[in-house]
């Protein structure tokens, strides 16, 4: 039966080519536009580290002194060096790392200074964020404690400085200091760069990674948000009243996360008893997706475009409803004949929907091409996320589901009207 309806649909569509083309075009434009913006949305709000995002937690706490604490304020994102070092020492999570972004100038073999983006962190950073090594290995936890003069460099910097050769054991000149390269990262970038959203939310990974303890020892320059209360001549000092370090913990199971939450509460309580503050303090964990959500990583203009594109799809649907209605009712005579020969109302209804579905599939295929074109345009826009936008298999399937669903939805009313055509009247007026 379905084959017969399909045949009828194709015949009918062929009979009025202009109207068919208009319907396909309307659906294709609606699908193309909305899939372009939905793909951008999907990439921006996607999971940067699938499979692990529920086990990685941003650790935040509020240890402001009483005169800076305000009830109901948000928990600050960063920790003081004192608290970060205390949590690291306690080591209550499976893995943990405090970190900060920075920049430094390294000197190439030819003696040319080169400015690079850096990350100062701990040995756990690499296994925690699944960073693969091309050559060598990450530094060890002992290196963190020993302020070892070591570094891990990115694949790109290795290419630039050493022509892509295995540079493990080579030294990286940083002013009058030198760092020994222990590892070269493989292909690794997190987009959005969730572990530190304060230095550009999208982009390549940092070029040089150095133990935080070493960076502090060498007074390497840090960047990122720092906020201090009270007198802070050196905001990086061990006891400086400044929050500036990002802290991540890996907690493999919900039970461990619960235990860690409890540990943080106890830590805050101890600080309170120690006389740092008299308020209750705040401490919390956010997993990767909660963290991205809290930081509003999806830009407002992308969310706006998504809403508008959906409205636009609605307009295209209304358009298709009108055209399908015209098409089906024009065939009242033919429908009258079929009804008179014994076709049930249901059969007419299904036949009309099959026709609408064929239009939808055609519109979806064409719309997919338009969406691909739209994404090329998005990639050429000077936005920091543009380069990372691409369509994956899920969005491809979603395109066809959306096209089919919307064309069937658009076909409902016209099909309903068509099945109520009175056979006698339709035959007579012919």
């Amino acid at each position, binding site marked *: 039966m379905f084959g017969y309806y399909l045949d009828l649909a194709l015949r009918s569509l062929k009979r009025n080519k202009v109207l068919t083309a*208009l319907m396909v075009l309307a659906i294709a434009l609606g699908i193309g536009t909305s899939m372009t913006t939905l793909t951008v949305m999907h990439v921006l709000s996607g999971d940067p580290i699938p499979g692990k995002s529920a086990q990685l937690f941003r650790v935040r706490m509020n240890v402001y002194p009483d005169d800076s604490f305000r009830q109901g304020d948000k928990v600050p994102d960063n920790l003081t060096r004192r608290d970060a070092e205390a949590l690291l020492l306690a080591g209550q999570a499976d893995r943990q790392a405090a970190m900060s972004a920075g920049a430094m100038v390294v000197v190439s073999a030819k003696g040319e200074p080169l400015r690079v983006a850096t990350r100062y962190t701990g040995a756990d950073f690499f296994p925690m964020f699944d960073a693969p090594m091309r050559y060598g290995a990450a530094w060890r936890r002992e290196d963190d404690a020993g302020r070892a003069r070591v570094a891990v460099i990115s694949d790109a910097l290795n290419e630039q400085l050493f022509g892509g050769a295995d540079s493990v054991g080579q030294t990286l000149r940083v002013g009058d200091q030198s760092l020994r390269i222990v590892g070269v990262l493989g292909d690794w970038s997190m987009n959005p760069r969730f572990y530190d959203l304060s230095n550009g939310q999208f982009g390549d990974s940092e070029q040089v990674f150095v133990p935080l303890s070493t960076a502090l020892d060498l007074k390497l320059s840090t960047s990122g948000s720092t906020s201090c209360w009270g007198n802070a001549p050196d905001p990086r000092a061990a006891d400086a009243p400044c929050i500036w370090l990002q802290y991540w913990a890996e907690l493999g199971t919900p039970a461990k996360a619960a235990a860690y939450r409890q540990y943080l509460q106890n830590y805050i309580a101890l600080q309170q008893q120690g006389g740092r503050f008299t308020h209750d303090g705040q401490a919390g964990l956010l997993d990767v997706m909660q963290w991205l959500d809290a930081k509003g990583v999806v830009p407002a203009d992308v969310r706006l*475009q998504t809403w508008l594109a959906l409205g636009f799809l609605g307009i295209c649907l209304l358009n298709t409803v009108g055209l399908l*209605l015209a098409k089906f009712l024009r065939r009242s005579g033919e429908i009258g004949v079929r009804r008179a020969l014994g076709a049930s109302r249901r059969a007419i209804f299904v036949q009309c929907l099959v026709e609408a579905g064929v239009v939808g599939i055609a519109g979806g295929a064409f719309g997919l091409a338009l969406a691909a074109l739209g994404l090329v345009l998005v990639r050429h826009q000077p936005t920091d996320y543009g380069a990372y936008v691409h369509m994956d298999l899920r969005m491809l399937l979603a395109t066809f589901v959306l096209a089919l669903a919307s064309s069937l939805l658009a076909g409902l009313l016209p099909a309903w009207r068509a099945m109520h055509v009175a056979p006698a009247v339709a035959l007579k007026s012919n």
Partner: protein
Amino acid sequence: MRILRQIRPILSALRSHKTAVTLLMLEIALTMAVLGNLVFIVYGTMQRSHMATGVAESQIGWIQSIGVLGQDNPGTGAENIAVLRNAPGVLDAAYGSPPFVGKETNPIFPDAARSRPVAHAYVVQGSQHMSTTLGLRIVQGRDFNDGDLPDLMDVFMKKTDTPLPALMTQALAQRLYPDGKALERILYDGRYAYRVIGIIDHLRSEVTGRANDDDALLTEYRIGAQDLGGGYLIRSRPGQLPQALKAAAAALQKANPGHVENKVHTMAELRENYFKSDLAAGRMLVAIIAILLVVTALGVSGLASFWVQQRRRQIGMRRALGATRGDILNYFQAENFLIVSGGVLLGVFFAYALNLFLMHRFELAHLPAHYLLAGALALWLLGQLAVLGPALRAAAVPPAVATRSV
């Protein structure tokens, strides 16, 4: 008048196509809602990208000169300013950063207790000559003089409790002191106290479209014998910025062999960079507007051709009874005008509803009424253009059709 007489038969003809007419009116109303709001957003972005910051943008360049750790560097801050000022084509120079570079608002408090902020303003700090290099216009009070300026180290180490002398924008002064007496007032941010010595007309550190863009305090400190990495500003003679900036960057590099000049930009480049993602989003919206208009035109024209086909016999009869081709053309044009008008009326409500939603979710301003008027005109025009083809085909139907069966 002929058209007016036609309205009654048109309305009664439309009554027998209620569903199709309703759909078309809904489509036009939705198009109008989306179109009005989109044009409003895009126009707002374009206007913003031309908003002046209040500094002498066409003459200002910025050089970021960063110290390499452990490299000896003979240059000092004061000498660097002198070197820059002596470069050919340079009028003035200072240590600091221009609008669009790394600016954040600070909470401003009326008293030292800092319990309730009264404003969130941009606090711009720079060395001696900062205000003259930026070319700020003082409308009340005075500019900094040499005796005012505290030493950089005293400011950074916070060794002084004396309020720092500061210039305030008119907008912030009016917000904080509606009585007009802003001069000599003391106010506080999270870290320092400031004394207002003069009022400047404008200083926008960012152009976000928010009300506090033009709320700013500018303070200067004296830099001397420190080796100072960071941003340096120059102001060139009018029309000489590219050459002057190049010469200044070269001179500064020569005086600071231990520094790397990471970024050298004119204000025009900084502005372009600041707005590029907004303008990119604007271009996406323009593309959506264009496609939207095409789709709506397709819908109008598709339904009109269907009606023309359906009514061939009636058209033939009217022609046989004496109607001219012009009458038939007018009939379809008038019909389209009535449908679009209905859609436009409904569209006004839809547009305001969408605007309310966007205001709520995206800090959009209230949609001014003239955008709706423009939208209505655009849709009337679009409808007439879209119906023209089918209407011409209708007018070409020969009277003989009436005598044949369809």
